């Protein structure tokens, strides 16, 4: 739209009112989106007593960092934290290693049985075996309670593969032809020509994979038994959702400046921090990514 910021005077009184109404409504929306974060942050920095009395509504009261100290002293927390980084990084790289060459192959018109392979991939979007057969499959493969299962069993998502394929298809074929003239083989063409050209799409798919890995808890909860393999999300679920604290944890909290509530708030804050740190860098990619994938699929 060609209406610039400085042209408010062009509008009628009704338009001005409309503009203010929209601004106020969105202001309220933004505030309500932000409030839970602000509250949790404030609670994590307040004393347990202040939170219990209901004094903490917006800003922290009786500021103390004991809750953080308590949570950060828990070995299990750091194990889970490290596991989540492991699953996110290794999982995303594994997904890309499957998806990029596969999608490139699917995008090549010279691939024999191309439409058959495309259907083979797309069919899994419409029909999947479901929870129990997937679980029994992993069990039959003998990889229950292994990190390998978490990494490999959910490596490829057909949606991401198709997204990547569509992007490769949109690259003009003259690039491939020129590279082939120079004597490049298919691997070289993908690595030296198509991957550099597809950086935004690759980052988008990597982002989708990473978000899925970072946030996922269900299959980790079902597949893993060993405490030392659990990702942060399962650890969080056990503590904050099931209110499943050990006796030690509970009695330990009675006589101190932190409480169960503030400890939970501190855990939540600590687990959101990595997301907040990378968020500004990824923002421009997911905005593009949703447009890439949204309507086409």
């Amino acid at each position, binding site marked *: 739209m060609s209406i610039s910021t400085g042209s408010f005077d062009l509008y009628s009184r009704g338009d001005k009112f409309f503009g203010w109404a929209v601004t106020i409504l969105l202001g309220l929306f933004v505030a309500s989106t932000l409030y839970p974060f602000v509250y949790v942050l404030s609670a994590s920095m307040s004393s347990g007593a202040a939170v219990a009395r209901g004094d903490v509504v917006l800003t922290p009261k009786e500021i103390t960092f004991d809750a953080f100290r308590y949570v950060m002293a828990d070995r299990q927390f750091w194990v889970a934290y490290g596991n989540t980084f492991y699953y996110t990084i290794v999982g995303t790289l594994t997904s890309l290693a499957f998806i990029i060459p596969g999608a490139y192959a699917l995008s090549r018109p010279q691939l*024999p049985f191309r439409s058959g392979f495309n259907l083979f991939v797309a069919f899994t979007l419409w029909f999947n075996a479901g*929870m129990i057969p997937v679980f029994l*499959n992993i069990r039959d493969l003998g990889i229950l309670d292994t990190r390998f299962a978490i990494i490999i069993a959910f490596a490829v998502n057909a949606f991401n593969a198709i997204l990547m394929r569509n992007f490769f298809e949109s690259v003009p074929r003259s690039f491939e032809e020129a590279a082939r003239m120079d004597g490049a083989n298919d691997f070289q063409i993908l690595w030296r020509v198509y991957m550099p050209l597809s950086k935004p799409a690759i980052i988008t798919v990597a982002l989708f994979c990473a978000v899925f890995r970072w946030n996922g808890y269900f299959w980790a909860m079902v597949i893993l038994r060993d405490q030392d393999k659990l990702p942060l999300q399962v650890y969080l679920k056990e503590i904050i959702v099931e209110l499943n604290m050990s006796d030690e944890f509970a009695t330990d909290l009675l006589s101190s400046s932190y409480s169960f509530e503030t400890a939970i708030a501190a855990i939540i804050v600590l687990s*959101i921090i990595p997301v907040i740190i990378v968020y500004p860098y990824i923002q421009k990619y997911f905005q593009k990514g949703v447009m890439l994938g949204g309507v086409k699929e």
Partner: protein
Amino acid sequence: MSVMTDPGVSHTSILTPPSEFDLPPLTLGQRFIASILRNWQIYLMLAPMVIYFLIFAYRPMLGLTIAFKDFSLFKGIWGSPWVGLEHFRTLFEDPYFWRAVKNTVIISGLSLIFAFPAPIILALMFNELRHQGFKRMAQTIAYLPHFISIVIVAGIVVNFFAPSGIVNLILMKLGAEDPTYFLTKPEWFRPIFIGSNIWKEAGFESIIYLAAIAGVSPSLYESAKVDGATRFQMMYLITLPCILPTILIMLIIRIGNLLEVSFEYVILLYQPATYETADVITTWIYRQGLQNNNYDVATAAGVFNAVVAFTLVITANRLSRRLSKTSLW
């Protein structure tokens, strides 16, 4: 046979397989082998993904057969005896299964009514913001909850709606006498579930509508302004109709996924006291299958779920093809 060194092929056909005219007649089998040899590198690139789908997507589909078997872990999928449709009979006679079907449809329906329009309204409002700085900030904040793990969202919800949580605190200050145990009350489950879902996803989902709005021709607004249209009229009469195709496609996708209620989130929020309104098909399958080890009956429910979902998706795609002349895939 390498295309590169074949002297009989002109340079224009380097990438296309040589036509039959250049070659002695081959049998189908020979041509099949030749095409694989010619494209072996591409096949090699495709192989890991195909093997992945075979092992982790198609192999479990064989496991669906246990819906028709008296399954035991010791005998395995192949060793267990067939029982025909017995599990489906058990399933369809189970009132709790039907309760789960009913809840799935109700929660999906309510989401369609309340959660589906939210990102559209949000996108329309974002588009009306004239202050670029505020607009960018508002969008940045609106997208953020999408990236927060569902476990943390559930943790915050449990915390907020606990008897000693902030919601009860405010209600008490407003004059309520006793705290409400929101998460144990069946009537509160759906509003809390859908409301927190809107909080988490509406902002992020608005991106797709903002993309559609960005594609609206500015000349439409200019001529409307010349005609003296107000901003509200422009939004209602230009922007909204222009993004209607996008809305329609999203609606069809949503209907296709009608059975897909985020069970990961339900599992985190529900408890036996709220099963009455909260238990959906997938959570029922989870409890039957993975908690009670009734693998076969749970799989029968999964087959039911998958077949209905598949039918819905196919129907939705037909519908979209007819309405928009472009299929979804």
